[in-house]
């Protein structure tokens, strides 16, 4: 029966659909965006409604250095990807490692800030509404950075073992989509917490 049973091999390359892992990651990013949106809405809705101190204006310091670290890691992962596509193993590993370091620095910055808030200002998640919304929003983001760092490190270890070549570049690209998303979310969180929320 004519057209239906034609084997796929007769039209090679003519039928092209998006790479499924990219679609999958895009779906995850959409879902995660909705989660973050709800936390951001809660943060903005409760901004200035705490019944007791400390308030954001009193205790928050803008983490400019660590923000630069995280945002530039988007660039380094992009360079790493380009090296991988072209088969430059050393360049890929170097930039990939730099990405992990920058992400790690950012996480360290969040940790330092939390330490300062808890031990110097006595602000915990149960202190007031600001504490509740601040730690959950920033914590949710830090959790995503942590997950991202774990995945980046796994790829790095595979890379050191020589298992990541240009044939894996599409998969690495999927992971870097996630990392760009984590960075993008930080832009929103930064704006909400350190600019609008004060």
């Amino acid at each position, binding site marked *: 029966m004519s057209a*239906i*049973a034609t084997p*796929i091999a007769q039209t090679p390359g003519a039928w092209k659909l*998006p790479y499924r892992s990219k*679609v*999958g990651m895009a779906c995850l990013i*959409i879902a995660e965006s909705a989660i973050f949106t709800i936390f951001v809405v809660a943060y903005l809705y409760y901004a200035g409604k705490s019944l007791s101190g400390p308030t954001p204006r009193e205790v928050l310091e803008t983490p400019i250095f660590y923000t630069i670290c995280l945002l530039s890691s988007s660039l380094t992962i992009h360079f790493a990807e380009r090296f991988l596509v072209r088969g430059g193993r050393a360049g890929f590993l170097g930039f990939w490692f730099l990405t992990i370091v920058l992400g790690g620095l950012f996480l360290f910055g969040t940790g330092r800030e939390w330490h300062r808030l808890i031990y110097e200002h006595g602000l915990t998640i149960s202190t007031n509404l600001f504490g*509740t919304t601040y730690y*959950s929003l920033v914590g949710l983001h830090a959790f995503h950075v942590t997950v991202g760092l774990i995945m980046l490190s796994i790829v790095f270890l595979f890379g050191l073992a020589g298992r990541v070549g240009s044939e894996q570049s599409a998969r690495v690209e999927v992971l870097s989509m996630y990392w760009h998303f984590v960075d993008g979310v930080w832009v929103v969180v930064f704006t909400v917490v350190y600019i609008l929320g004060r």
Partner: protein
Amino acid sequence: MGDFGGTAMSSDAMAIRAAQAAGRPWVETLHDWVTTVDHKRLGILYIVYSLLFLVIGGLEATIMRIQLMRPHSDFVPPQVFNRMFTMHGTTMIFFVAMPIVFGFANYLVPLMVGARDMAFPRLNAFSFWLTAFSGILLYFSFVGGSGLYGAGNAPDVGWWAYAPLTSRAFSPGHSSDYWTVAVLVSGFGSIGTATNIIATVLSMRCPGMTLGRMPLMAWLSLVMAGLVLITITPLSAAQIMLLVDRYLGGHFFDTQAGGSAALWMHFFWIFGHPEVYILVIPAFAIASEIIPVFSRKPIFGYPIMVAATVCIGFISMSVWAHHMFTIGMTSTANTFFVLTTMAISVPTGIKIFNWLGTMWGGKIQFKTPMLFCIAFLFQFLVAGLTGIMLGAAPFNWQLNGSYFVVAHFHYVIVGAILFCIFGGFYYWFPKVTGRMLDEKLGKLHFWLFVIGFHLTFDAMHIPGLLGMPRRIYTYEPGRGWDIWNVIVTIGTFIQGIATLVFVANLILSYFRGPRAGNDPWDAWTLEWSVSSPPPAYNFAVIPTVESRRPLWDRKHPEDPDSRYE
């Protein structure tokens, strides 16, 4: 029909598999089912799992109806009644409706788009087992949960769990945590499956299957999955906040520390209203497959159907606060949500007209699947009309929280969604099992269910109009509610009997039903081109399609659809 190259090959392969399977110990079969990543088996698991919970949720409803049949009844104590309505709602939405919808999509979408499996088979299995685990976790609360009334407490905060009922002070112990964690975990399962459906539809279609040629089932599943991604996640976020409140001393919903109970309502209904569409869009999908086949006409207005569905998807995300007219929003907000609610009835109306347009002038065959779909059309229209009534804020102020609301949403969920799902069972059971469901039992099931449904839910509107509030465990005699409650309860039992007929039909037909063959309905979508049940790999040769009705083209090479599209 049925003897087309690849198809014959796959039937042979099936025969060999069946012969191999004959002498295997049951442990191995069980192991196969537990470790399976095959979309068809996972689809069946989803459906069987949700049927199990359908029976449990139905029993809970029956307990409530027995209690409410007469005034001053003491069939169950009030705290048990609270657990019953909480568990009934949670079970029916998260562990019956969602999994059954996912089951249908899982089984059918890859077959319909000409793929050998879903895009991520292992994620698919993981999502199913997450859902399965969360259902068991919820029901473990009956044994292991401790709550307001001591040990062995199921959640009793209502399926929407309004703050501050869920705060530590009013929900001591762990019963509410079972609810929170179960719903959270099932949400993760839903996100996994939705991702899978989207990736399958976008990346796994066979050559020639452009977006404009996909069966409506695939299109509507795509929209449904998109809605799941955007609207289940707010609920997950709200559950995380609730856990922060309960375990870390947070104040999200703690009014004493400046938190807001209304915010929980917003977050819940941002999920809650689109959820209705997550469930009803797959029902639309089933109707859109069945009605053309049994009217012997292609679907009327295919592009409009797709556009209307996408439209519904978008508008459904802007109507949530029509559940909250009585909490005292500003008049601007009220007006906005009234208008969006009215707006969503436009694309829905378009769909109804298109289904009627499909039937118009067709050679309608009144087989059981078609009967369920025709009843769906009528009932969904009525549900839409009461929906418009409730969507008008002043009317809503009178009737919110009454049995009128309960009647309205059961009209949607039972009268539209469940009817379509029953229709889907009669339509695809032959494909899944290789045997036809019995027509006589099917018609008996249909008529009993129609009668039971209308007795219950038509009658339920009236005590609502007369002021009977929902969630009361008993009431005073002589308010004009008595007779209606008796009728509602009688209807419930008739629906129960109809469901028993259905289950009997499933079991009897599975063993004794006549052989179905590949294509018992003379249908047009790709799933009917393979053997029944389909082989594990679906298609021995990946098909190529040239129109929206590939099997029509194949059966009528002298007059293919591709000539007109």
